[in-house]
């Protein structure tokens, strides 16, 4: 699942919950699913950030004098 797909699903879940038309059991399930998606998205962002910083560091050290 790509970051964008996960984010999209998360946002739909939030909207659904905020509309308040979900059953209680369903709402709990949606919430759990939302938390799961959030964790996944944060993980992907952290990985991307790590990669960017690594590249920036490498580019900086490879700079010609």
């Amino acid at each position: 699942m790509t970051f964008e797909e996960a984010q999209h699903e998360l946002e739909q879940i939030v909207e659904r919950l905020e509309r308040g038309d979900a059953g209680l059991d369903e709402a709990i399930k949606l919430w759990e699913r939302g938390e799961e998606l959030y964790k996944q998205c944060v993980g992907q962002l952290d990985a991307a950030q790590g990669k960017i910083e690594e590249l920036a560091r490498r580019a900086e050290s490879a700079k010609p004098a």
Partner: protein
Amino acid sequence: MKVEAIQYGDRKVYTVASFNRGVADWLSRLPTIWVEGEVTELRRNARWQSVFFTLKDPSDGACLGVTIARSRFDALRLDLGDGERVHVFGRPELFEAKGDFRLRALSIERFGLGDHLAALERLKQKLAAEGVFERRLPLPFLPKRIGLVTGNDAAAKRDVLTTITARFPAARIVVAETYVQGPFAATAMIDALRGVCAAPDVDVVVLARGGGSFEDLLPFSDERLVRAIATCPVPVVSAVGHEQDMPLCDLAADARASTPTAAARLVVPDASELVNRLDRSRAALARGARGVLERRRQRLERSHERLRRAPALAVERKRARLEHSAGRLRTLSPRATLERGYAIVRSGDAIVRSSAAVASGDAIDVEVGDGRFEARVE
């Protein structure tokens, strides 16, 4: 003069002398005319009666011998140099002793500035009509090798080389030194141009010369050179240092620079500026990547915040609805009726709905608005 033929049977035969005389006689009837060309091989000797030179057509090299009486030539005080363009006024003549055809000059006029300008303008119109000035090949961004055609000790050469090296130290240059003024300049420059183009890897050529007088720069308007530039296999940058009287080579070249230094700037990029630009791009790249990430993260956190609040909100809302229902439930319960003065009578566990359901002496249970009590049926 009478030309006599010798009769051999029915064949008429002329002696060489009489043939020459006959032709000379015919030629002498032609009118005097003006002929234009370049002076070459001028020979003047104080002991000779005549001065000799060859008049050459600069466009195709056709030649014509010219003689002029020495006294007449000296009186003109022309001080003609080799390759100089002139108008010669005279008539065709055959030198009978040698059978030499030539132009007997009566007067010579140096080709003046006005003539040059007029000739240049005509040539310009002609070449423009042929589309010779329309080529504009793009210059390579980073030339593999640069060909430089220039004078052999010219400041122009130094300017081009210094500027190229300063801007792009790794540039490779092949230099062809050549005449850049005088009668042989045009052909010499064409040879030099072909020479550098033939050198391996050359993908752009600079033709450079510092400023000069109008006459000095004439070879740069030579038709053959102009055509050679227009058909050169690689792009040509013309840098003939003169703002006015733009030489025709400038019009045919793929790019034109006002000075040799400017030409150098056209053919190579500034290496340090390139590096700076790359550095800026790289910094912007990192900034851009971080920015994208940051925006994603903020959006994600906003979603998460809403998600975090959502279940409590949902439970809250359900609880409120529940309370509301409970309220209504309570309103609908019989207790409210009891409070208005009614009572519920139970016998054992059953509600008493009929007087027949109880008999005298039965113990009953009465419920009223604020509680219950025991009673006995009379």
